[in-house]
């Protein structure tokens, strides 16, 4: 038997969710929660400092971001958030 996809036979292929992440460098206090728990490993801490002396996150794999906004939910300093891009996406990912 041919292996059916998760959506079953005949269903359109699942579209990979795409997202975009927004970073407010100067608000960041470098806790790394966003980097650690991003499910797509899209982030890393910058080597450079922000004005407060912390290492804010930078996007290292923009194409991997799925816009799940986990970074936004974790960030205690309201310095990062993710959004889905593209129409018709379900946000329960």
């Amino acid at each position, binding site marked *: 038997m041919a292996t059916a996809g998760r959506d079953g036979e005949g269903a359109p292929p699942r579209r990979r969710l795409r997202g975009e992440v*927004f970073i407010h460098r100067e608000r960041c206090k*470098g*806790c790394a929660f966003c980097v650690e*728990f991003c499910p797509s490993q899209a982030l890393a801490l910058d080597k450079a400092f922000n004005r407060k002396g*912390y290492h804010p996150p930078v996007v290292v794999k923009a194409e991997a971001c799925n816009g799940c906004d986990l970074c936004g939910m*974790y960030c*205690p300093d*309201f310095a990062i*958030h993710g959004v889905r891009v593209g129409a018709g996406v379900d946000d329960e990912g």
Partner: protein
Amino acid sequence: MSQHVNPVEPFLRMERMPHIWCPGCGIGTVVNCFVRALLKTQVDIDKVSVVSGIGCTGRIAGYFRADSFHTTHGRSIPFATGLKMANPELSVWNFSGDGDLIAIGGNHFIHAARRNADLKVVCVNNFTYGMTGGQVAPTAPLHSLATTAPYGAFERPFNLPFLADSSGAVYVARWTTFHVRQLVKSMEEIMHKPGFCFIEVIAPCPTAYLRRNRLGDGLEAMRHYKQSSKVVHGADTRSVDIELGGPIVVGKFVDRDRPTTLEAMRDELHKSLGDKYVPYPTGVQR
């Protein structure tokens, strides 16, 4: 709203930012989850009120752009109870630290739960008094170090879900700041649930608790929550004590219904007085 604007911004008094919370403190994460729950339930923000007592967690009321009130230490529940009684259409949310809610405010907590006051109570439990530098709290795990327990805490801590459950709360859940999606869901669930609803959120306080106990920084605490938490929905609340560095049982433990203070009062007065009884405020059901 522009996609570039962080979703919390419309809900916060941004002119008061940056906030006072230390790097790696978990309180901001709880704020994020509350805002996500408000957005998801699409509740009218003019019908939401946020009340806090004193402490780092207590700052939430001051930062929130809603009808919010930053009360005195331990007194957020009495204030919130009065607010709800006079304005039953409000969804009244109480954010407190474990010291504020359970030490100085502990008596208010158990009685509000017993009476089933219609309040949504979120306790940010960081196991210490963060704002005042790390004194021993009634949640401090046995043997943990605090400024007032330099050789280790020797008094048995409260198990908050059990305290809430046995006092009569109709909804009891515990999450950690690692469990953001679950926390949002619990907050959504209680947004419209009548009665005393309690959510404990275990959160890192790197400055006053973790460092003194050599438990690392905020990130290390978050990794510990991820590795050592066990989700047990419906767990017997007597079994969810927390030990220093030990596993943390999380989940929704209690979800039941019983009449709120206002409902019970109205029923009783109506039974005794019949049509002579005119409920106040008129026209509002709970």
